[in-house]
């Protein structure tokens, strides 16, 4: 296993120490139970926006904690959802009296653990609302699955809701906005090579030199289909078409296009793919009004990419543009 680590058992805790040292102006790390908290938390009168999930998707979520985005992130072990006591601790540390919005990616483990924490917090009279994001069109949302997974759209959701909380929206408004984002965002991803989880020690799946896995998740789950590897045009079309067909996105729609690296795909390739996606959208008369390109929702050293499209309106665009100051996303004053 090729890793820069000391011990698979302590990899998340060890990494959090480095995160805190690197960004002491932005975050405080509570070691046990592990929580990454905004340095100036709690912000009085502000809805606390909290997320979390398994580690290995960095910069999501710890790198997205800071003014204009998350108040806290709960990092589980690699690819394993956090536990309720982490979420409880996050709520306690960030509750400024206006309640907490939990942003949960739709995985059985994440949903169950956050649900337990929400019940416990409500029992202590803290107002808690939960939004579950499930933007991955690779999964059939039906009686026969656990429902769609939360993937790339999560970062856009966290940015937009974070901005709303920062400007003073109350919990109900934040929740309604979050649900609007979830309703308008769709994603799909693919892999050329699998990640290796430290405590497993071998790649999560095996792909031949001429194969790709389409419709993968972000935890090294195999995808829905293994196909012969294609060129960039083919890959982008294979991701973008189901995304656009699903909502559906229509001619004249204004969108945010998020071209995400799963970890090991170089920026050289990512920008190349982004350019292709922009042209495909332009060909359909869909207006790319904002974009995000980079490794934001990763899966350790998985090689591959995902595309996320969010339908914008003036309010969403304004909230996207609002100032943000986190380790990974930073703009405005």
């Amino acid at each position, binding site marked *: 296993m090729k890793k820069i680590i000391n011990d698979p058992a302590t990899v998340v805790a060890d990494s959090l120490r480095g995160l805190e040292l690197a960004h002491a102006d932005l975050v405080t790390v509570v070691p046990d139970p592990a929580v990454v908290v905004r340095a100036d938390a709690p912000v009085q009168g502000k809805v606390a926006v909290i997320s979390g999930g*398994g580690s290995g998707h960095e910069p999501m979520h710890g790198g997205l904690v800071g003014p204009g985005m998350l108040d806290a992130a709960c990092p589980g072990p690699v690819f394993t*959802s956090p536990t309720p006591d982490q979420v409880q601790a996050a709520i306690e540390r960030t509750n400024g009296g206006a309640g907490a919005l939990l942003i949960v990616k739709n995985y059985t483990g994440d949903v169950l*653990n956050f649900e337990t924490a929400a019940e416990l917090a409500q029992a202590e009279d803290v107002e808690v609302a939960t939004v579950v994001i499930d933007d991955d069109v690779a999964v059939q949302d039906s009686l026969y699955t656990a429902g769609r997974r939360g993937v790339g759209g999560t970062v856009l959701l966290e940015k937009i809701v974070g901005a709303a909380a920062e400007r003073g929206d109350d919990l109900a408004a934040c929740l309604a906005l979050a649900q609007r984002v979830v309703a308008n965002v769709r994603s799909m991803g693919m892999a050329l090579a699998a990640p290796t989880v430290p405590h*497993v020690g071998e790649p999560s799946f095996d792909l031949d030199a001429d194969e790709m896995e389409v419709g993968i998740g972000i935890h090294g789950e195999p995808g829905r289909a293994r196909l012969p590897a294609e060129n960039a045009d083919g890959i982008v079309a294979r991701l973008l078409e189901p995304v656009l067909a699903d909502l559906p996105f229509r001619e004249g729609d204004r969108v945010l296009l998020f071209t995400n690296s799963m970890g090991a795909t170089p920026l050289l390739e990512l920008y190349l793919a982004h350019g292709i996606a922009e042209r495909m959208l332009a060909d359909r008369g869909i207006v790319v009004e904002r974009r995000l390109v980079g490794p934001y929702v990763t899966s350790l050293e998985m090689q591959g990419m995902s595309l996320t499209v969010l339908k914008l309106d003036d309010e969403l665009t304004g909230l996207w543009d609002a100032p943000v100051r986190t380790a990974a996303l930073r703009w405005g004053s």
Partner: protein
Amino acid sequence: MACTAESVADAVRAAAAVVASHRDELVALDRAIGDGDHGENLNRGFTAVVAALDEGTPDTPAAVLKLVASTLISKVGGAAGPLYGTAFLRASAVVKDAAELGPAEVVAALEAALGGVVARGKAEVGDKTMVDALSPAVEAARSADSVSELLTAAAEAARAGAESTEPLVARKGRASYLGERSAGHVDPGARSTALILGSFAAGPVR
């Protein structure tokens, strides 16, 4: 033969040992149709359970089960953490403050555990989850006369139930994302349930 707090604690230690020795097998099963962490998750949790028990065994079987529940909930994470945690929590609640558990209490505990897993996870038999092992185990337990017979019957039914998941297409949990590709593999959670019940049956429960 009485099932005291001590013997429940011993059973849980036996379960921890079996989880540790099957960690890699559970990881491999989860790698095939999930994300490869089930063995690691459970092992982390049961290691913490043993550490908690080492600090002193609680007084009653219910208190032992509750300690197991809260430790699993705060250490396992993933789907298995809340599911196993709820199972032990409900089992704890149902046996109240009995100092010793007889067959009726053990059956009630198993039923409550199953009820908790279903309440949280909403899975039915055939969905390719731990319910496919736990549900037949509860059924089998009902028809036995002693705790040890009952646990042996439950373990055997769980083993068969876990094996029965192999051809199934998953409809719950992470494996459901794979659709048809999930068939042909044993469900890791069903397997771990069978292993744990097996350790209860084989172990030092008197």
